[in-house]
């Protein structure tokens, strides 16, 4: 049976199917190689023109990626695409990351601009637009945000009114921060019919009443187009309503789920690009007669970055593999294929948000360390780490801020619990019972047995903490954002722990112990280091849940000591080994 969203939290480590990036097949690797060639030979030489937003440069490059076939990967063959799955799309997304501006433009087109039509379009809409989007003849954009409504997207003011002859909707309003907006041919625009019914429309640039404003001056991704979209008595044919009138919120939020996974994939790639730059620099740069790569504090940055990269990679490919597996079990020609896939995407909303939050924050830290490793040169524009540092910042803001996504991670879990969709209460009861009787342990003959136990501790911590919070607050928990954010971090860590250990175990089965040495150091170090950090956060939160009342919080803290025992693992030595492997290979590889 296929996995269910949120499963990872309530089920112990198991051998159910999980896709790991280490098993990408040669075809996908070949497609990824072509992507890299294109990026290094065609995109990067134009970097200055891209950053200066020289007119035509970005749109021409996107059209060239269309000729190469990079825009058609996820579009089905019947609409002139290649009909490849999410794993392939992840491998390609990872490799368009040499320049953040280009990556954002590419992701926007292939993700939030193309997929709404694929998932929600009528057959006519698909026939009309998908081949053009797949070839790059049309470039796409997604227009949700307004000056007054960002995270609160449903408060949009853009209005649509049916024309007297019933043939058109007349749209009026302004959308803002529209990626690719300056050159897009097709916009998915959200507006409220009669000021009430939130609805999506496919708006072509050439329709009457469509115009765009000036480019924004941004902190990073200087080369990507970000403009306001102005709709002034814009006449949109009724057949260009996407999905149903009044159901636009479904599209808006579900498409963002897909966007979030893609953003995670881009973060993996950006981290890998940074390794290519930093490992070269630190092996060449000599100080005190030694290369920087021989200093422990520099090596720790390499190791910490590698750990983060490994973790995002594990969760992003796991997500893609789950979707592909389920997609493969469905009849692609059936009328309800896309509505079924949409349910799957909704089902894995937690996992998508985790990919976004964990991915963007991991990249923030990896790029920060990259600047640090290059020292003064990291602060100089001649080296590209400064650009990566600037460009990645927006990842924590768009596709739903990380704050909104944290609320979604814990909120979705709690909603499913209340709705009885997941059996959280049984898991909670098990944890509470085991607190008295002791926790089960992994057979010591199994590989990394102590660390397999540690994975379960992450899950128990999230379950216990979630249980205490729900018990205390009931439905009012929604107002306690601080608690929900800590819970989201616990859930995230549990997912990362579960995914990385399962990846390690599968890697061992596939390739044997010798190939697992560095991955094992990475996984064990993550597992040993992260739990005490979470423990500290959770304990603070528990004291707050108890309103500082000692009688109430002391039992919580007692339980915490049992839930999170000290792990004995020499993280420093492991980091030394991780760094050595990566510095020797001059890239994120071992």
């Amino acid at each position, binding site marked *: 049976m296929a996995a269910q969203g949120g499963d990872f939290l309530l089920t112990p480590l198991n051998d159910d199917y999980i896709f790991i990036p280490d098993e990408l097949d*040669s*075809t996908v690797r*070949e*497609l990824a190689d*072509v992507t890299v*060639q*294109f990026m290094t030979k065609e995109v990067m030489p134009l970097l200055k023109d891209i950053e200066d937003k020289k007119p035509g440069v970005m749109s021409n490059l996107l059209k060239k990626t269309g*000729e*190469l*076939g*990079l825009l*058609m*990967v996820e579009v089905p063959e019947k609409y002139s695409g*290649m009909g490849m799955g999410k794993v392939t799309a992840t491998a390609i997304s990872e490799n368009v990351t040499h320049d953040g501006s280009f990556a954002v433009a590419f992701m926007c087109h292939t993700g939030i601009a193309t997929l709404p039509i694929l998932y929600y379009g009528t057959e006519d809409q698909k026939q009309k637009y998908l081949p053009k989007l797949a070839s790059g003849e049309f470039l796409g954009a997604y227009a949700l945000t307004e000056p007054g409504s960002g995270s609160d997207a449903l408060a949009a003011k853009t209005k649509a009114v049916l024309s007297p002859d019933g043939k058109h909707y007349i749209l009026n309003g302004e959308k803002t921060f529209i990626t690719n907006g300056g050159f897009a041919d097709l916009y998915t625009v959200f507006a409220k019919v009669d000021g009430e019914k939130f609805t999506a429309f496919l708006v072509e640039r050439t329709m009457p009443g469509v115009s765009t404003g000036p480019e924004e001056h941004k902190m990073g991704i200087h080369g990507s187009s970000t403009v306001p979209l102005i709709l002034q008595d814009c006449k949109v044919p009724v057949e260009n309503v996407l999905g149903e009138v009044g159901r636009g919120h479904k599209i808006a939020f579900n498409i963002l789920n897909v966007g979030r996974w893609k953003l995670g994939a881009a973060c993996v790639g950006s981290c890998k690009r940074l390794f290519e730059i930093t490992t070269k620099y630190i092996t060449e740069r000599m100080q005190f007669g030694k290369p920087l790569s021989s200093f422990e504090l520099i090596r720790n940055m390499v190791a910490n970055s590698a750990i983060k990269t490994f973790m995002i990679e594990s969760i992003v490919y796991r997500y893609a593999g789950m979707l592909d597996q389920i997609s493969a079990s469905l009849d692609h020609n059936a009328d309800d294929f896309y509505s079924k896939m949409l349910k799957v995407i909704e089902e894995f909303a937690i996992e998508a948000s985790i990919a976004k939050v964990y991915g963007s924050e991991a990249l923030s830290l990896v790029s920060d360390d990259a600047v640090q490793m290059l020292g003064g040169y990291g602060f100089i524009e001649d080296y590209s780490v400064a650009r990566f540092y600037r460009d990645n910042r927006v990842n924590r803001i768009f596709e739903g801020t990380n704050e909104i996504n944290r609320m979604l991670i814990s909120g979705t879990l709690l909603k499913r619990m209340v709705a009885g969709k997941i059996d959280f209460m049984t898991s909670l009861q098990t944890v509470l019972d085991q607190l008295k009787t002791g926790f089960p342990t992994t057979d010591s003959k199994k590989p990394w047995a102590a660390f397999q136990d540690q994975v379960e501790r992450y899950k128990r911590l999230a379950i216990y903490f979630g249980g205490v919070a729900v018990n205390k607050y009931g439905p009012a928990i929604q107002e306690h954002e601080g608690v929900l954010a800590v819970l989201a971090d616990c859930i995230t860590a549990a997912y990362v722990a579960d995914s990385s250990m399962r990846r390690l175990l599968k890697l061992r089965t596939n390739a044997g112990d010798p190939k697992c040495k560095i991955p094992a150091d990475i996984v064990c170090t993550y597992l040993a280091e992260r739990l005490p950090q979470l423990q500290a956060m959770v304990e603070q939160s528990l004291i707050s849940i108890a309103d500082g009342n000692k009688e109430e919080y002391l039992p919580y803290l007692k339980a915490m000591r049992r839930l999170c025992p000290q792990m004995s693992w020499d993280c420093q030595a492991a980091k030394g080994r991780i760094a050595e492997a990566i510095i020797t290979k001059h890239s994120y590889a071992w």
Partner: protein
Amino acid sequence: MKIGILLKQVPDTETKIQLTADKTSVDTSAVKWIVNPYDENAIEAAIQLKEKKGGEVIVFSMGPARCVDAMRTALAMGADRAVRVDTADGEWDSYTTAVALAEALKAEGVELVFAGKQAIDDDASQMVQLVAERMGAASLGIIETFELSEDGKSATVTRPVSGGTKEIIQVTLPAVFGCDKGLNTPRYASLPGIMKAKAKPVVEKKGAELLGGETIKIKKMGYSLPPERQPGRKLTGSPQELVDGLVKFLKEDVKII
């Protein structure tokens, strides 16, 4: 018309070359393999010709099974099928390689062959001429332009000669052409092209069976790597001492003055 491409899979230019323990060959275990860069121009020339005049493009390569990866690149760019001449048995130098390749080309009835002007691994630069000789065809190394005649029986090419002068040559087919960077800009294999290439036929021929009794003319006795670069020496002291030290070093240690 059948258009042939000679393709060689070579180590990536950034590969750090290491020798096997017995120093009789290059250790290929950690090598990343690529299509010989000049051969990309040969592929492009063949595909452009096919696009203009029609015909079938067949890519030929000599080597072990891993060469198929390189041939797939040519297939992904637009070649129709591939013939791999296996090197498992037999002894190989430029001569026997050319004999086997020429036999394979003749067996397919290929009259027009594009090859890279040289392979970047051994830089022997002999294949264009040797294969042409064995096929009884003309050979034209380092072409900058290529134009097939209307009747498809001859071609006009330009070659650089000394001082920037161009030689304009008309040649009657069959002929083998050595391609250089300036001839064209090789296209990228498109993603759909890569997927289609999976289904294109690659046949294998035993190289040893194509030799007809011919044997190698040269034998490689061994390999040696360039000596490791010695670290520099830093002189210290007053200007007078520095000069004295440098002169002494140049006279006595390296003996160049």
